[in-house]
């Protein structure tokens, strides 16, 4: 088993994969969205309750590979209680971390998110790690526009 692989499948990732957080149904959600990656068939459903521009609660149901499930699980841990602005900044930082771009914040400060950097070496897997984040961004965007059921695709 080589090191790069262990960078991808870090213990934290495997832990989130085996025991995904935030897998709850939210009855009074303000936004619901579904995302999928047609290439690998991974799918995520997301419910978000937002109040006063704060993500109060989020439910993430992800069916997919270790990376996409773990990413969604970490997302649920991090975004609850954050403002819409903060969430956007974090999502942008995750994207930057994965694709090698610049970001304004340090992911170390946000739960386990920094471990996603291991994915960078595996271009095909970047989409897996991004799926939940893209879906969340779409969710928020359509919430901002007053819609609440967008479908997205990372393909």
């Amino acid at each position, binding site marked *: 088993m080589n090191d790069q692989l262990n960078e991808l*499948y870090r213990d934290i990732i495997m832990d989130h994969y085996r025991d995904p957080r935030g897998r709850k149904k939210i009855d009074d959600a303000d936004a619901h969205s579904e995302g999928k990656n047609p290439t690998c068939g991974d799918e995520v459903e997301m419910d978000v309750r937002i109040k006063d521009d704060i993500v109060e609660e989020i439910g993430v149901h992800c069916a997919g590979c270790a990376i996409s499930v773990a990413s969604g699980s970490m997302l649920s841990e991090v975004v609850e209680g954050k403002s819409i602005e903060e969430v956007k900044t974090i999502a942008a930082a995750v994207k930057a971390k994965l694709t090698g771009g610049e970001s304004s914040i340090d992911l170390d400060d946000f739960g386990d998110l920094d471990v996603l950097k291991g994915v960078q070496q595996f271009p095909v897997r970047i989409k897996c790690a991004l799926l939940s984040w893209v879906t969340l961004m779409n969710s928020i965007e359509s919430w901002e526009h007053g819609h609440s059921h967008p479908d997205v695709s990372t393909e």
Partner: protein
Amino acid sequence: MSFSVSAMPETLEKAGNITVLDPRQIQMDFPLLSRRINGTHLVYLDNAATTQKPESVLKALNDYYTNHNANVHRGLHTLADEATRIYENTRDTVAEFIGGVKREEIIFTGGATEAINLVAYSWGMDNLKPGDRILLTEMEHHANLVPWIRIAKQTGAELDYIPFDDSGCLIIDDLDSLITDNTKIVAVTQMSNVFGTINPVQEIIEMAHQKGALVLIDAAQSVPHMPVNVLELDADFLVFSAHKMLGPTGVGVLYGKQELLESMEPFHSGGEMINEVTWDNATWAELPHKFEAGTPNIAGVAGFQAAIEYLDHIGMDAVRHHEKVITKYALDQMSELEFINIIGPKDVNIRGGAISFTGAGLLHPHDIAQVLDSHGIAVRAGHHCAQPLHRKLGVGSSARASFYIYNTNDDVDAFIEGLIAVKDYFGV
């Protein structure tokens, strides 16, 4: 004059009536197979996606560019003459390889995909109208699906599908009712790139012809792996790709019955495919040139010649036999692994060497392929360009191991060990 002489391996043994090939000998002709991946030696099991190339194909490419490169046709100088002979010679070789069809019936394209697009467009636009039906199967590759979906939308024709059963075999009991009087064409894969199933195309063709429908055979997975005789099949169209049968990328073949090809309008247009051009009109060249617009992939076609010679030397019966043996060896062991589910038939008499499977519980195909790669084992994961098939199965994707002439039982053993390591890694 003699061109690209390809060094042929002495690798065949006769065992009783069956010619047996020696994959270990064959491996030595394939430079890439000695590559190391992630610190270990490569076990290449992604042959349904593309195959590796023998030294003789690389030599033929190199010989073409080093000694004969020129644009084909219409050139009066020596190089142009040689390049044309090499190019046209491969056409004869292909015609012979698939059962001795006419050279005019062999059209070179960029790949199987382009060949199907050619038929869907050139035949479809003039022969399909609202009410007509196109019959496909539920196990088609997107290449034999999307062009028909599009032409159906454009012409108003409708699509029907031959379903598959739990084991990944076509259900043809109802074929008689699926092929209606309005069915104009049946497009079916001879070997599924997901299930590995070898479909009963002979029966399908017979029944379709009885009903007056044409049949296109997607032979992208069959021609590389088993003897295919187009004349015996009586297929109307048949397509395949060089890169899946030891040949270069960027070369495909459309076989079409002469009278059909003659009746069709061209697909691409431009140089080489015209007879006469005026400011507002153009007439078409004779077959096969009518369908080959512009400068073709001459070097690729030159390399394809060497690929077919290599396969011919081994013999397609021996290729098929080897794959049956190795596939059985793999299926038997995979069936023992309780943490994977094989999709597709288990009987090697009705299947080729592409084995798709899903993992139990937390074992996702992407993760399986990723971890296998760290062991130097190359398999594919995804929908293998067959989304509707996977949707029907209720899975988003699958992992696939697929064999070819250079794969050994050792490769299978490594693969099985790899799968066990994956299981352990994920602690399933």
